[in-house]
């Protein structure tokens, strides 16, 4: 400790005691419920009686009530100082009480004594007496035990250590602090301040945010994304605060950051995704080793509730978009119906159950990379039920028929789809050696319709306008139009329980440069 931290503490009578002074000093830290502290109190009282006129005594107790008890129990004249805020204990890195610091008149630390080691104390304190020209100490050293360990300082109690760290001057936290009045309710206040998606939030106290920041190696003030529509700067600290709100654990934070980076790109166009009346929402798919590290659920109930990582990562992303970007329903978020995915939608691919290259490898990453891919989806998950197919062609044919309903059966070349293929359906494909390319081609094949069948009629006004169709010749009207503009607009991942001949599909929004393009973001290791 190169320079002892200065401090100002009060005793029970309101007397103010400030360090440094221009005299030798003894700085001590004790707490009432520590037996070793209790045992040495008569010794400290004796030292005070002998040296108090020449040495400044700063003996700090860690609770005000404990100071009263010690004073009464031992009849102390030594004033015990109130460090119940623990700020001085923290500043002095006190891990064990009692801790004594013997300080010279120049303010420099001469000895630091931890716990009770009688001979060490005797040597250091007799040295202090000599330095203070106070003559020999008449203390009954032999009545004290040779050695006693101390007790843990309250300043390193996990319940308060993070708060003390946040209060210290080198805190990484810069966010505006909001004081919640004693008579107020933090949960209600957060609703009133507009932070919530409608569900309760975890109060983002400095302690929790500091713990959250331990989940990343990034600097807390690094700007990782700029969030539309307000173009709010997302620092790591701000993302961490929203991750706390959402109920994340610290190790989830890199996934949240990567997800936010993915959606805050021109390709993904989060502003359009949030603003559209169609009710689109980001859907995050997680690939790579991080799935296992976080204990994400990729099996039974994968697209539903019940797993903390799946649920809170997706929610943290949405809260960050809301709180940092300002996308609030009724403001720039104009969805006609909204969408439950706007609360959260994040799941991992069960790569180990898939015979095919996983999503992130298809998109150019290494298998050992941890990657989050963001899709803008307007509906889903929609169940595709086929318990009868015994061939890949049949099953992919069913998928094609099901997917034709996306947006509208006559809406061809309009959107994309994210399919989640279940293990039982995977097995059907495996038996036929059916790969992703074959599935995509089959879906395009069975969903293709002659343009003449996609014309507005008495059943529905949606489709090619009659006047436009009338201007086309028979060859043009016979041209086959598959559901999707490109086979690559059919995204395929594997997840779900072992039982169930169902797969699921998310239906997209406006696809391509005029709408949203899926974006993959590798996360930090």
């Amino acid at each position: 400790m190169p320079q002892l931290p200065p401090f100002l503490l009060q005793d029970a009578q309101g007397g103010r005691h400030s360090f440094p002074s221009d005299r030798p000093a003894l700085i001590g830290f004790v707490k009432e419920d520590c037996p070793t502290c209790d045992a040495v109190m008569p010794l400290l009282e004796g030292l005070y009686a002998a040296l108090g006129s020449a040495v400044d005594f700063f003996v700090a107790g860690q609770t005000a009530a404990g100071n009263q008890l010690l004073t009464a129990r031992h009849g102390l004249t030594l004033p015990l100082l109130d460090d119940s805020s623990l700020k001085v204990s923290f500043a002095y890195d006190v891990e064990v009480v009692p801790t004594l610091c013997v300080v010279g008149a120049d303010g420099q630390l001469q000895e630091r004594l931890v716990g009770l080691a009688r001979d060490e104390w005797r040597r250091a304190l007799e040295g202090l007496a000599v330095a203070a020209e106070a003559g020999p100490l008449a203390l009954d050293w032999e009545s004290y035990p040779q050695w006693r360990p101390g007790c843990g300082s309250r300043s390193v109690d996990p319940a308060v250590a993070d708060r003390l760290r946040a209060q210290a001057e080198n805190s990484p936290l810069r966010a505006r602090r909001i004081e919640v009045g004693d008579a107020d309710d933090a949960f209600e206040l957060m609703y009133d301040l507009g932070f919530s998606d409608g569900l309760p939030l975890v109060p983002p106290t400095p302690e929790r945010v500091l713990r959250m920041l331990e989940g990343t190696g990034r600097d807390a003030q690094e700007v990782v994304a700029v969030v539309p529509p307000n173009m709010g700067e997302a620092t790591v600290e701000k993302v961490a605060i929203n991750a706390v709100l959402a109920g994340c654990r610290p190790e989830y934070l890199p996934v949240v950051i990567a997800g936010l980076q993915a959606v805050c790109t021109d390709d993904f166009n989060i502003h359009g995704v949030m603003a559209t009346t169609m009710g689109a929402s980001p859907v995050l798919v997680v690939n790579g080793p991080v799935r296992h590290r976080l204990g994400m659920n990729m099996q039974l109930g994968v697209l539903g509730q019940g797993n903390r990582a799946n649920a809170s990562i997706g929610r943290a992303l949405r809260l960050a978009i809301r709180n940092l970007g300002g996308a609030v329903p009724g403001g720039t978020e104009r969805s006609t119906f909204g969408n439950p995915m706007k609360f959260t939608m994040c799941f991992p691919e069960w790569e180990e159950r898939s015979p095919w290259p996983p999503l992130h490898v298809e998109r150019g990453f290494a298998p050992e990379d941890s990657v989050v891919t963001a899709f803008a989806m307007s509906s889903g998950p929609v169940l595709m039920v086929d318990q009868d197919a015994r061939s890949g062609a049949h099953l992919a044919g069913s998928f094609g028929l099901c997917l034709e309903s996306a947006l509208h059966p006559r809406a061809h070349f309009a959107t994309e789809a994210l399919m989640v293929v279940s293990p039982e359906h995977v097995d059907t494909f495996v038996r036929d050696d059916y790969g992703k390319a074959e599935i995509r081609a089959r879906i395009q094949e069975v969903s293709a319709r002659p343009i003449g069948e996609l014309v507005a009629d008495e059943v529905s006004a949606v489709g090619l306008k009659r006047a436009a169709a009338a201007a086309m010749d028979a060859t043009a009207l016979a041209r086959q139009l598959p559901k999707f503009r490109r086979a690559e607009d059919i995204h395929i991942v594997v997840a779900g329980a072992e039982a169930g001949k169902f797969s699921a599909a998310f239906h997209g929004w406006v696809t391509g440069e005029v709408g949203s393009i899926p974006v993959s973001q590798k996360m930090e290791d």
Partner: protein
Amino acid sequence: MLTILDPTDERTPPTRQVTPRTGKVTGNVAFLDISKPKGNLLLDRLQSLLEVSAPGVRINRYVKPTFAKPAPAELRAKIAGENDFIVEALAD
């Protein structure tokens, strides 16, 4: 006393002031088609009406690349630099 940290970007949006209304239209007027279907028809009709009611006005037509994204910064700067008024057309 519990302390929580602000999850927002901490920027109070500046109060948006409506430009003072003069009661008449003069100079250059931008007509911005946001690229929703038939937005151009709406603007055509408005243009023909305005050319009759305010014959001295010059109308400049602009088109956003897509209605789904904010207008590019260059387009916003161009419109602001070349015009005194703007009509932004939404249609479906």
